[in-house]
């Protein structure tokens, strides 16, 4: 089953493994149905993942106190032009 924080790529990889199994002639009905269920779950997860991305730009700077990350809008960047 998929890792909790599986990347989109992991999810697709897992999906294609499940599909490959289903394309094999030797698959039994139980496995096929279980693969179908798993596949649908993975697709939902991947979809959620795509939807969850938040649009953001952040500037990362090094400082004596460590890494500073500050959000910046494109407009703010434009102001610096």
């Amino acid at each position: 089953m998929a890792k909790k924080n599986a990347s989109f790529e992991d999810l697709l990889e897992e999906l294609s493994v499940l599909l490959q199994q289903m394309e094999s002639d030797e698959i039994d009905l139980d496995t096929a149905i279980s693969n179908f269920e798993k596949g649908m779950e993975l697709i939902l997860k991947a979809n959620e993942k795509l939807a969850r991305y938040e649009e953001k730009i952040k500037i990362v700077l090094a400082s004596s106190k460590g890494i500073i990350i500050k959000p910046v809008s494109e407009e703010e960047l434009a102001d610096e032009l």
Partner: protein
Amino acid sequence: MSEEDYKVKTDYISVSQLNTYIKKLNENDEVLQNIKVQGEVSNLKRAVSGHVYFTLKDAEAAMKVVCFRTYLAKISTEISDGKKVIVSGSISLYVKDGILQLYATNIVSAGVGDLYQNFLALKEKLEERGYFAAEHKQLLPKYPENVGIITSNTGAVVHDMIRVLRRRYPGISIYLYPSSVQGEKSLIELPAAIKLANLHAKVDVLILARGGGSLEDLWAYNTEVLAQAIFTSKIPIISAIGHETDVTIADFVADTRAATPSVAAELVVPEYIQLLQQLDQYAHKFISMTEKITTSKANKLQQDVLQRLGNSLQAKLKREQDNTKRVAKQFEQAVLHVGDKALNRIQQASIRLDLLSPLKTLSRGYAICQSPLSGKLIRSVHEVILKDQLSVQMADGKLHCRVEGVSE
């Protein structure tokens, strides 16, 4: 006018005449009219008119240089104090101040020739160390969630890239690791930005980008320090430095090279729509595969059931048949057995019958006396009266008799 006055008069010339004379001397000298001079820029002044004035000097001497606006427009080299340059032009005297000046028609960086040599030498050295080898190239992630950009956070380049990234993948997370992209600072800041991104360990891929420029402008991308930072980066790096024709050491070391920053942005992220379509395709495949499998399994199951049912019926039938046969056989045997016994008894009986047979007795001379009407055997003289008819069975025939007398 005295003679002395005349002498004096003829003895000297005016400053203007002198300067004009010197100017002419210079202008007649072929060497001085087309000369290249190397030195360091100092005292740089940009006049409101657009002309540039500076002093070109080396350790022991200095020469004033003027570069007029019209020539300056064609010169791409950035001129700054302390910079070593080669100035092409002609020497002339500025009559008004009596100063010899170099009138520049072109200025190039004195380092360029050296820079190119350095570039080649470093390229060869790093190539030998395997910095460019294919086996060290990391694959770019197919579906990055966080993209890092190392460039100046001002200027068109970063905006172009953000625009492309967002067009392809709305909502992509972008992390900027700002750095100077030319000049002394960039030599330190560029490798530092790569190290910072690795330390931050947030982005899946880094774009090292810069707009076009001269070899000199791009020099920070040709240093060993940067090459090393790229080579040791755990995060895959795509380089997009300058125009397509500009190739830097960083491009050779990077995991992938893009022709321009916008192209790098295109390469780095997939198109969002395509991802959605891909997921959709997966879903369709799953559904159709499952349908196919369940249908074929159902058919097979049906066949199996029929087959098994058939088999079992057949088996049952066979069992029944076998049973029937067995029973029949048993019956037959029983019958035979019974039959044999019966036959035996019949035979014995017939033997006995034969012995007891009246016919045999008759043949020995006995006769059977019967009433001809009832067939009743007459066993006693008391059973008849006079004149009764009797039938007497002999071995070879019958006598029809009448009772004439009875004696006891």
